[in-house]
């Protein structure tokens, strides 16, 4: 994880006047598992296609190991893609699909045979050589698509929502398999998903995107615990986002009640957004916490109860293992370090946050 392997510099891309990526800057280090995360239409696939060479940016540069590859066609790039809908060649057997890149590179048939065997073993599909793609299930086709890409030993593997079509169980299995593959092969992964859980589970680095802008780049823990703006907070997991006023350093006022917090440098009496994760709210008896409220809804979620607590006109979402029936009177308490303070959006970039809601 040292130097920049791929460097996107000031990439702008628009389709018929509609700007999809605006001055996007992003670099990927060697051996990193980087995930592009964002809602549908935010430009994830477009970013990936620019790296893969299927689209040319209107302006900006793509550097690969420091060399400008912006104008290089896909077949000349040391990058392989696993497409969202697999894109297996329907008229070829599984073996021929996997061998495609190797045959183009004129590898010996003994080498190709070994590679096919190795790749099929890697994705747990030994013996599938002579099957046709349409006789495979979605998950199996997905794994063949991965096998077809990795036999070429690319430096970077681009994966566009590769698990999108799979059911929950298979998706989780494949998540582990992908991580195992990555560790075994030591390739850099650039992964696209709109599933925040998947992103948090798998990545070294997450890039949260919205409307063509990068909202935040960071490690999963960093993104989850310290979202930089309301969009990231809302997109990553459930959260309560409340307007508040920063009274002074380490003291914030929400809904008329004052909470201690650990954030500094937001000035005095400045409007801010406050993020509180549902699992960070403690429910106490009435009058014991900072804000009194009434439980309006309770759902059992397996591991915990998800409850809605109405307090001074704001509905908090609370996760707790303790059960409070509907209409119970409770109060809300939050530890100072579980309160996350964010600036109100000012710049164009951050406004993208608001429009999407």
């Amino acid at each position, binding site marked *: 994880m040292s130097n920049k392997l791929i460097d996107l510099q000031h990439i702008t891309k628009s389709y018929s006047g509609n700007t999809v990526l605006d001055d996007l800057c992003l670099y990927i280090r060697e051996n990193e598992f980087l995930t592009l995360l964002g809602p549908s239409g935010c430009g994830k696939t477009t970013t990936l296609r620019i790296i*893969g*060479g*299927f689209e040319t940016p209107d302006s900006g540069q793509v550097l690969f190991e420091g060399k400008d590859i912006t104008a290089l*066609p*896909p*077949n000349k790039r040391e*990058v*392989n*893609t696993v*497409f*969202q*809908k697999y*894109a*297996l*060649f*329907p*008229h070829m057997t599984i073996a021929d699909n996997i061998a*495609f*890149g190797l045959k*183009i*590179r004129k590898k010996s048939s003994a080498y190709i045979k070994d590679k096919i065997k190795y790749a099929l073993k890697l994705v747990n599909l030994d013996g599938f050589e002579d099957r046709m793609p*349409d006789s495979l299930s979605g998950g199996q086709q997905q794994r063949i698509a991965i096998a*077809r*890409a990795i036999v*070429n030993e690319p430096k970077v593997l681009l994966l566009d929502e590769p698990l999108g079509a799979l059911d929950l169980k298979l998706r989780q299995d494949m998540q582990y398999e992908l991580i195992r593959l990555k560790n075994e092969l030591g390739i850099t992964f650039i992964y696209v998903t709109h599933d925040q859980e998947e992103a948090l589970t798998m990545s070294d680095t997450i890039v949260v995107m919205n409307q063509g802008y990068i909202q935040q780049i960071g490690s999963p823990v960093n993104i989850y615990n310290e979202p930089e703006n309301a969009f990231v907070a809302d997109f990553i997991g459930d959260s309560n986002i409340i307007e508040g006023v920063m009274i002074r350093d380490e003291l914030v006022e929400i809904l008329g009640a004052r909470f201690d917090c650990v954030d500094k440098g937001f000035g005095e009496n400045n409007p801010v957004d406050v993020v509180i994760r549902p699992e960070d709210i403690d429910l106490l008896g009435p009058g014991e916490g900072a804000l009194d409220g009434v439980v309006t809804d309770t759902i059992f979620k397996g591991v915990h109860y998800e409850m809605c607590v109405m307090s001074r006109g704001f509905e908090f979402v609370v996760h707790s293992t303790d059960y409070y029936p509907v209409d119970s009177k409770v109060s809300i308490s939050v530890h100072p370090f579980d309160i996350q303070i964010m600036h109100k959006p000012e710049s164009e970039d951050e406004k993208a946050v608001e429009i999407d809601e």
Partner: protein
Amino acid sequence: MNSSKNRYLASPYLIWSAGFIIIPLIMVLYYAFTDYDGRLTFSNVSAIIYYVNIKALVLSVIFSVVATLFCLLIAYPLCLILTTVIKNGSSFLSLIFILPMWMNSLLRTYAWQNILERKGVINGILAFLNLPPFYIINKPPAILLGMIYDFLPFMVLPVYNSVSRIDKDILNAARDLGADSFDTFVRIIWPLSLPGVISGITMVFVPSLTTFVISDILGGGKILLIGNVIEQLFTQDSDWNAGAGLSAILMIFIVISMFVTAKYDREDIK
């Protein structure tokens, strides 16, 4: 239970095909293997070995093969350009190529006669420009031109369908795995479009083989194709048995080409 219901839905088609396909077919075969008095004979069918007949048949096959080849050579690159280079509005452009199909084919053929005649449109323009005249009317090239023009849409339609149905991401995947444009064409586009090409070939080959209108109008009656021979037997000689005999022979050729199509259709890629 669903399939029995579907069987009822198919009954109009069954009646149709019995009335307009099966019964005429049986009648053709009946006439082909009987003489004027209704006695069994093979002379109608074996008449194909006479020089005039075999010459007309060979000529027909040659014309059809050449016309089919030209149609493919024109239609395939056209469809490639329509689907890859001009993505927007390609369906409109392909419509333009298919549009002539909506005109009566007799009308189209007469139009070509007018254009190619000794004192026709082309030679009028050439004379106006003081260029030497250009005579292909009543010669093989005129018939070929007529066939290609008339049957080109039947090639464009299936080829365009099969080429445009190829998923863009499959082509991208080929490029991604290192294939250049040539490799992508040879290994992906061509094999995936083959079903369309095969059905285009039959759809041009069969009508070219049986036509008598085009050779009549653009060949001036000087070049006899097998279709003309059969037509003359029916209309001028009123010898239905002889005409049916040669038709039966022609049918063998058509059935062979149908078999080829059916074979490839079964291997069609969904």
